[in-house]
């Protein structure tokens, strides 16, 4: 009901993690430390939470979430990169990317209000492909296939925030800055979604998924509920995209394809549709496996096995297998969504609350 204790524990662990000494364990041939992969995990988690608003709560099968991730990334990149004249500061760019993606989400949602299920999935899938084509072809805006680069390091009021990393004694090239910024945004997103989940809007989302007609007969406008789900879901995807742009330092069209949408959907389904904890865990498992576990295991494997088998090459196979097993044995996800239990007080009928 309240913020469960293990979430506090998780946040605490993540806060001290960069100083634990584990963060610099190098992974495989790339020799990137684990810590620099974790900050990427955070924005993928925000992306999955955004998709969860559309698919998990509201039951709107959205297969184009990568497009909104890309839109957020490109807005943030255009607003900050030196080759464009705007060069805004970090927080403004992140906010505008979020709002821009939300507005486009509403613009996609408004004409498709009467579509449900498969048909909505087709439209969103098509939208994703169209947006990707735009990223490639709008040469002057997005610099086409080569993409926008470099995206400057986060700053506030034109003061680079690198001093944070330096103050932590890690040098300007460390991952600490993005790690903490992304973690902050993730915690913020989780808190806001947790509040929304138990507000009237969250209830209306779930009711929309359960029975749209019954919902409208209760005096709730399904139009508004759907559009708000699109706005918040796509807005979160845009936020994740902006964080992606800043963390990676460059933006190009290739990552924002259908694969990303599909994998994000896998995260949501694996963890548990409509459950925040589940989605976080699902993202942690899928991306954690992809980015951290498989390179670690691969680098530890003896050379003669590597000739025949590396987890890195077989990872899509392993994803597929995991999903099939999941659907067979636990279709509701690892942590299924649970409705909040409420206390009913004795009052009014017997005179005042007891």
């Amino acid at each position, binding site marked *: *009901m*309240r913020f469960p204790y293990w979430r506090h524990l998780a946040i605490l662990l993540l806060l001290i993690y960069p100083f634990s000494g584990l963060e610099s364990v190098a992974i495989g041939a790339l020799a990137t430390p684990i810590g620099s992969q974790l900050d990427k995990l955070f924005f993928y988690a925000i992306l999955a939470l955004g998709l969860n608003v559309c698919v998990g709560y509201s039951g709107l099968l959205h297969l184009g979430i990568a497009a909104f991730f890309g839109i957020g990334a490109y807005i943030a990149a255009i607003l900050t990169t030196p080759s*464009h*004249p*705007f*060069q805004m500061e970090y927080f403004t760019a992140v906010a505008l990317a979020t709002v821009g993606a939300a507005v486009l989400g509403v613009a996609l949602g408004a004409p498709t209000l009467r579509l449900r299920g498969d048909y909505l999935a087709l439209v969103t899938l098509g939208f994703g492909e169209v947006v990707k084509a735009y990223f490639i*072809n*709008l*040469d*002057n*805006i997005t610099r086409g296939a080569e993409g926008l680069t470099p995206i400057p390091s986060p700053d506030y009021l034109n003061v680079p925030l690198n001093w944070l990393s330096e103050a932590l004694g890690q040098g300007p090239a460390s991952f600490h800055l993005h790690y903490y910024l992304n973690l902050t945004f993730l915690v913020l997103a989780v808190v*806001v979604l947790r*509040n*929304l989940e*138990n*507000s*009237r*809007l*969250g*209830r*209306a989302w*779930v*009711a929309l998924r*359960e*029975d749209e*007609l*019954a*919902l*409208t*007969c*209760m*005096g*709730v*406008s*399904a*139009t508004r509920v759907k559009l*708000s789900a699109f706005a918040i879901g796509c807005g979160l995807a845009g936020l994740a995209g902006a964080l992606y742009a800043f963390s990676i330092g460059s933006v190009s069209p290739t990552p924002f394809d259908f694969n990303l949408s599909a994998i994000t959907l896998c995260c949501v389904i694996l963890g548990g549709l409509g459950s925040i904890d589940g989605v976080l865990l699902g993202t942690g498992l899928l991306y954690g496996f992809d980015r951290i576990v498989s390179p670690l295991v691969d680098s530890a494997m003896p050379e003669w096995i590597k000739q025949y088998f590396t987890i890195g090459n077989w990872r899509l196979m392993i994803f597929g297998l995991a999903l099939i097993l999941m659907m067979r044995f636990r279709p509701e996800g690892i942590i299924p969504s649970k*409705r*909040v*239990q*409420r206390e*009913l*007080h004795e*009052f*009014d*009928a017997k005179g005042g609350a007891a």
Partner: protein
Amino acid sequence: MAFLKVENLSMRFGGLAAVSKVSFAVEKGQIFSIIGPNGAGKTTVFNVVTGIYEPTEGDIRLDGKVEATPFTLLRLLAWTAVGILTGFVLMMALINVDRFWRATFSSLDRSTITFGRVWNNASGYLTGRLAIVEKGGKWTILDPTRSYVIQSADSEEDANSRLERFEKIVANSGIATIQVVDGEGAIMVGDESLLTLQNQDAASQALEEFRKIEVDRSRRKTFALIGLFGGFAVGFLGAFAMWRRARGAPEVIARGGIARTFQNIRLFHNMTVIENVLVGRDRFYRSGLIGMAMNALGITPEENQNLRVAGDLLRFVGLDAKANMLAKNLPYGDQRRLEIARALATEPRLLLLDEPAAGMNPSESADLMKLIEQIRSRGITILLIEHHMNIVMAISDRIVVLDHGVKIAEGTPEEVRSNPAVIEAYLGKEEVS
């Protein structure tokens, strides 16, 4: 005056008439029943009254008023905004947004970007004006799309005078001619020589370029206008059509004070019992998005207030002990009662019950009858569809009988019971042998 007045109501699906020319009037505080054999159009009447279908003919008045979203100035403004936005987007799509971006922003950097300059560049591209760009004491004249340099100049005056002459050539490119003077080619408009180049070929090539600019300019203007006004029309009319269509939508009717239950139970199955009722309370919440995002559970007075009302309603229908169960796990009779509680949560003036006793045993039906009486005593008028004749005859004040979409009888239970037309509809005609 009647509380709910249904007049000449007809509902046709394609050629099939589900309901034709049904009229009845419900007085305040009555329990009014609609009965009839299967397929008589009873549920269709309910669906029309609650706005799920728009009636083919006839009208429905609650307290003398048709429930519909009113037209306001704010709505007009909203449609206009949607229209302008659509127009802008369509215009951008038609004028090649990529070249527009280059024309608008490529000559600027962070120190020179101002709203005036951006506006100047953007409108210059749209209207096809040639542009002057100054960089480090050098002036260059660019084509309207800012993709190539036409000429360079040494001073601002020089650049301006050249620009003026070029604009003149572009404007008159249809009638401009080439003349050869001393081996040099000159572009002439009338008697005025506007540009001199080293030979005739170069001059005619340049004139060709100016003609292209002119064609491009007029084409772009046309496209921009088509996009702007076409998009505006599409957006404005689309928003208007959406409003027109949703005028009498179920949510509007529900907010007007008509609530209903469904023949085949339509609860929110994966939500708890209390949450089902809270969804019904939705229209009494006032908090906006920010308020909800800040709303940690159980802190806001609004949420507590509505939770209290929902709890009372559950107590009223006898489900308070099961408040935290999922709706799908309730037994059948409890699901029916929960649906009634959910409908009551919207604080209706008129409650429509669609076969509430379907599938209930006699003792459950008796409980239900008591519940319906209690709801009436709260001042809520009830419109009931039911097949259990003992319930209908016992609690109804007035009954309407439908058969094949036509009203065949109306009156008090006694009158209806003895009406030969009703007996015929239910039991068939006695054959004379």
